[in-house]
């Protein structure tokens, strides 16, 4: 009944004092779950663990994810009530049907102890802005209603998820009282380039914690943190889309929740929503990060350097699927940006770095390199231009796509023959550049834009 106590405590906490609390309490009465989802959640009644799987047209992979989650909960939490909730964004394929029909045969598992309770499986649509964040909101609300003590979310496009992921994401919360478990994967060097170019270095240099996969997509969350997320006024913004992962990680760090990482092995997944526009994804992620920089200005400005975040799980090496890259095309994209968007970049990037980037546009492909210091300053210039609103924010973020593609081209060239360890060492140098250039960021942040 710990879950029920938690709900009561939360409600009392919201209504005891303060206008802000009353607003939160009023907002909670506006139910975020659609009626169908609400009815089905109430039918379940109570759960100790809720595992959420957001989806949109993932019929090809979600069956494997559901089986792995089911097996993990059966194997590692046999004495607890568990619910698997698929929050679907209007799939036009068989995704929801696959979730309902997927079966885990008893022969698939050799169990030392058998589960005391059946695992409930719900597949419900969500309301609100179409996107992963809205799906998460639905999952968190269901977890709150069910009185769950721990919640985990996993992507529905995963091909490498194993039952052990459930234990690694949930056990630190139930057994050690942690609030947020971020994933730590082994990924191909050309996988997760937005993380490597922006999210990891920026999160680390700003907030002083080395969370390697801040937008990994698979997280463990405590009840009180899930409840805290629900009270925030962000669900109509880019957070409701691809900004959700970085928002969750940053909020957990900045609001002093206990954060750790879980080593999950390899991450092999389908390309993220092939229909999605890369520029829009970049806008949502960067826009959320830069907005959070404004929200948590008093947190990141005084911080210097960074520290490790505890990592649970047994580390091992794995083979990874190769990823093909068309570097020439990326460089052409960057050059196109330099030709046509230079006037915009002049308003954002400091003149000396822009001159260096302009030189790059005319060099041979094999000499195409963007140094860590220049890249760190360019990212900081983007953040400052966003902060000072030197132009329409959507234009600013969209115009950064060729710069990012240029960085990827440079990274691919630098790491062409590198091992995974070499690549990590190179990313470590990039992060150190971000940390050493932080004074530059603070100066620009408070002084004005690069062009001003």
């Amino acid at each position, binding site marked *: 009944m710990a879950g029920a106590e938690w709900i009561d405590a939360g409600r009392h906490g919201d209504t005891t004092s303060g206008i802000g609390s009353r607003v939160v309490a009023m907002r909670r009465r506006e139910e975020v779950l659609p009626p169908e989802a609400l009815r089905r959640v109430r039918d379940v009644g109570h759960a100790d663990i809720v595992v959420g799987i957001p989806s949109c047209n993932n019929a090809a992979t979600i069956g494997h994810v559901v089986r792995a989650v089911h097996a993990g909960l059966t194997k590692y939490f046999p004495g607890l009530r568990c619910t698997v909730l698929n929050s679907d964004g209007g799939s036009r394929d068989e995704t929801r049907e696959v979730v309902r029909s997927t079966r885990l045969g008893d022969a698939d598992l050799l169990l030392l102890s058998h589960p005391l309770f059946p695992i409930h499986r719900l597949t419900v649509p969500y309301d609100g802005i179409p996107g992963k964040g809205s799906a998460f909101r639905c999952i968190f609300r269901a977890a709150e209603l069910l009185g769950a003590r721990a919640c985990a979310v996993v992507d529905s496009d995963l091909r490498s998820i194993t039952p052990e992921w459930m234990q690694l994401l949930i056990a630190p919360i139930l057994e050690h009282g942690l609030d947020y478990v971020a994933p730590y994967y082994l990924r*191909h060097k*050309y*996988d*997760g*380039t*937005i*993380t490597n170019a922006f999210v990891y270095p920026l999160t680390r240099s700003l907030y002083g914690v080395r969370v390697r996969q801040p*937008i990994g997509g698979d997280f463990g969350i405590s009840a009180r943190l899930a409840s805290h997320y629900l009270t925030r006024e962000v669900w109509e913004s880019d957070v409701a889309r*691809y900004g959700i992962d970085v928002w969750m990680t940053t909020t957990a760090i900045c609001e002093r929740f206990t954060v750790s990482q879980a080593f999950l092995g390899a991450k092999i*997944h389908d*390309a*993220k929503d092939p229909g999605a526009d*890369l*520029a829009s*994804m970049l806008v949502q992620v960067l826009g959320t990060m830069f907005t959070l920089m404004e929200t948590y200005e008093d947190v990141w400005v005084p911080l210097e350097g960074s520290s490790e975040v505890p990592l649970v799980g047994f580390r091992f090496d794995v083979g990874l699927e190769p*990823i*093909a*890259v*068309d570097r020439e*095309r*990326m460089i*052409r*994209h960057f050059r*196109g*940006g330099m030709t*046509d*968007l230079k006037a*915009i970049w002049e*308003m954002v990037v400091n003149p000396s770095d822009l001159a260096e980037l302009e030189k790059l546009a005319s060099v041979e492909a094999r000499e195409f390199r963007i140094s860590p210091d220049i890249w760190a300053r360019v990212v900081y210039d983007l953040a400052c231009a966003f902060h*000072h*609103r*030197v*132009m*329409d*924010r959507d*234009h600013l973020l*969209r*115009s950064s*796509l*060729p710069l990012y593609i240029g960085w*990827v081209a440079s990274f691919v060239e630098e790491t062409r023959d590198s091992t995974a360890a070499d690549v990590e060492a190179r990313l470590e140098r990039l992060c150190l550049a971000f940390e050493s250039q932080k004074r530059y960021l603070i100066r620009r942040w408070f*002084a*004005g*834009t690069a062009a*001003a």
Partner: protein
Amino acid sequence: MGDTIRTVVEQAWQQFQAQMVSVLPHVMAALIVLAVGIVFGAIVNRVAAWLLKASQFDRRFLRLGLFAFLERIGISSSSAFAARVLQGAIVFVAAIFALYALDARLASDLAERFLLYLPHLLVGLVILGAGAILARFLARSVLIAAVNNEMRAGRLLSGLTRTGVMVVAVAVACEHLGIGRATVQTGFAILFGGVTVAAAIAVGFGTQDVVRRWLAGLLEPSKREDGGDTIHHW
């Protein structure tokens, strides 16, 4: 005959002299007022720009979040813009003074007509201003989208967008001000029709390869793995 001609010429000259004597001081005064206004305006512009820069007006303006608005209409420095507005106001006031010095009745008449026309003029200016903002915004959107989609004609498309929006804005403003209504309407119709046809042809030619590839993709969706870019950005 000769005397008559001489008398007429002398009378004309005397009348001219008399007119000149009465008008010239007004003209001179008007020119002096205008010149002083222009010089004073230029000085005020320089001084104001210097003072505003020294007081970090740009940075304060930036913090108000109004820079993006000015930037949209092509103004990169708020202090320079404010100084120029001040200069324009001084020159405008000087011009009115000059007009009064020239002919008070004419100036009064002009001022009255101007005041009657002023609301139309202001609305026309607002239409033009809104058109300029929209043109700049859409042109930049088109340019960025074209670059991000690796299209080579980004600047051309952006320029066409800007021109198209401004043509519409100017036509609407002229229509509102009552300037050459029929001519503007006819010209606009011809231009708009021409641009539409040209754009349709250009898009048709430009996208035939895209359409071909799209159709090929529809027919053979499984042949995507051609060794191209499969990088996972996320």
